[in-house]
């Protein structure tokens, strides 16, 4: 089955089911933690020290936890980008590319209308980021709906394309000549920068991400559209015979999902970087997919799993220095967590 367990309008909150699920989840986490400790030992690193550094670094001071919030913004948005299509039985593994494409369109607005007032420029950038990501994902949705091209593969491959389009722009047409030949665009004007909160790096994207969580939850649980999307996910053939515009729903879900990832790209460029450059996202879209998967594609649970992965990610930046590990080695921990949770999740299918 492609989907995580279905998001139901009335989740089963009965104590035993809830407790068992939580127990399995925590069990999977502990298993993954133990496995990562073994990996660290194999590479001659002290796992106790590494874990201490991860938690100390991510949660030990206000810098740490504000950084966790900063990372949560793209993680949650890209997780939602995977979660919405999952309701329709679609696999969107392209949030990474959609994030980059949203960054491109938002940057175009910033570079073109950056002299305007903030109240106009910023909303325009958010809209542009949404449209950019929506286009990139909607393309895959349309190819799937009307040409039968598998969206798992098209979204994956278009990630590589979007990243190279950014490379092309920042090395070529959009390169700022006054920037010592670095492959960056010109720095955005103040009007095109998302404001930061609490005097930290946390930015207004946090509010956008929170809004997206709530809106998506309401869409899926309280509206006819959400209900019909889940019908499409449950049985597309029945939905089609029932007169639902299945193709339209597939495209729309992908487009909205990509739009959310595109907003993440807008936020990263506008708030964190202040310009477009290569590598604005270090695999955020893939981490978002993991977060969505761990959350069973449930928008509210994504906040929890997004926070968990953000802690690990911030911790990873810390252990890079403290234990001398490449920062991407936290990918090992993230993958093991997914394996741990997959491995301990209740079996939904009988083995063939």
């Amino acid at each position, binding site marked *: 089955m492609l989907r995580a367990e279905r998001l139901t309008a009335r989740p089963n909150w009965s104590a035993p089911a809830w407790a068992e699920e939580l127990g399995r989840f925590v069990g999977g986490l502990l298993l993954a933690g133990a496995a990562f400790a073994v990996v660290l030992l194999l590479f001659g690193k002290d796992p106790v020290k590494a874990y201490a550094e991860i938690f100390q670094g991510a949660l030990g001071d206000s810098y740490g936890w504000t950084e966790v919030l900063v990372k949560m913004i793209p993680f949650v948005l890209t997780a939602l980008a995977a979660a919405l299509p999952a309701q329709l039985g679609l*696999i969107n593994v392209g949030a990474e590319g959609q994030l980059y494409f949203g960054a491109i369109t938002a940057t175009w607005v910033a570079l073109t209308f950056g002299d305007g007032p903030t109240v106009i420029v910023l909303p325009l950038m958010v809209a542009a980021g949404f449209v950019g990501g929506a286009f990139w994902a909607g393309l895959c949705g349309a190819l799937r709906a009307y040409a039968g*091209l598998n969206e798992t593969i098209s979204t994956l491959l278009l990630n590589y394309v979007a990243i190279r389009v950014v490379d092309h722009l920042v090395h070529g047409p959009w390169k700022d000549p006054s920037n010592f030949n670095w492959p960056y665009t010109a720095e955005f004007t103040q009007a095109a920068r998302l404001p930061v909160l609490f005097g930290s790096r946390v930015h207004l994207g946090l509010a956008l991400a929170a809004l997206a969580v709530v809106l998506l939850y309401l869409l899926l649980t309280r509206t006819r559209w959400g209900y019909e999307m889940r019908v499409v996910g449950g049985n597309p053939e029945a939905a089609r015979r029932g007169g639902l515009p299945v193709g339209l729903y597939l495209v729309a879900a992908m487009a909205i999902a990509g739009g959310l990832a595109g907003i993440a790209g807008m936020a990263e460029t506008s708030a964190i970087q202040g310009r477009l450059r290569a590598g604005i996202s270090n695999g955020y879209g*893939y981490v978002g997919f993991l977060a969505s998967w761990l959350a069973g594609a449930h928008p509210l649970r994504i906040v929890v799993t997004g926070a968990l992965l953000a802690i690990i990610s911030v911790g990873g930046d810390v252990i890079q220095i403290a234990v001398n590990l490449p920062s991407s080695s936290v990918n090992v921990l993230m993958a093991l967590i997914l394996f741990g949770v997959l*491995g301990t999740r209740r079996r939904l299918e009988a083995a063939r």
Partner: protein
Amino acid sequence: MIEVVVVGVLTGAIRSASSVLLATLGEIISERAGITNLGVEGSMLMGAGAGFAVTAATGSPVLGVLAAIGGGALLALLHAFMAIHRGANQLASGLAAMFLGLGLTALIGAPYVKANVDGLNRVAIPGLAQLPIVGGMLFNHDLLTYLAFLLAPALWLFLTRTRWGLFLRAVGERPDVVYAAGLDPRRFQYAAVLAGGALAGLGGAQLSLAYTHTWFEGMTGGRGFIAVALVIFAAWHPLRAVVGALIFGGAIALNFQLQTLGVRISPYALDVMPYVLTLAVLLVWGQSGRRAMPEGLRAVFRNA
């Protein structure tokens, strides 16, 4: 002049195609048994990273290639356990394997990032390599490239002409029939996924040891995902996989030739070609392929 370019593109196409071809053949085996593995990307990385690290540490490319096979298969084993024994979602498990490969090879390869190894050099086949034009094009490659292109017809013969090949295909189509015949379908699936991982690892080794002679994080750049796409294009047929891999390799080789010729196109724009071309061939010829999809996969790729 034009002849030099054409020969250059064709020679380059073969060299660039072989890593993807090995991975594609591996994925064909796996999917023919009803298990799809997006972790091919991770297995390729394991092959590239472990193969390079062992070669650099021991000086022996043979040990490196063995390590690549082992690394690729080991990662696939984890996926096989999740997919076959735990009934986990195959796409999620495969992506987790991709992530694990990415992270593990970052650890394994870190000391060797700036290293350079002799690795696998080209071996000209005596006699044949001296033939005009085609000699250099076809008969002056590294051993893994020869292996990749010989493996395709061998795998075709195995799948269509042997008992075990028939069983393997039956597992992917109707596991219950295989079970009724007194065989355990799961054993075939484990063997198929492991073989797939081993071949992907071999493809990774070709990339780091024979193609670039270097290692850097994430060096496969989506070749594993390309392989998964090419399996659909190839309609699960090993010989059609050769065509798909050559199209991909040709795009890379054409890039390279255009850049050396000084054509004024952004190199990043040219870099996009292999991915776009793969999607395009899938779009145009993928339809006929989908009908050939093993029954057991339909539950995974629940295509409308």
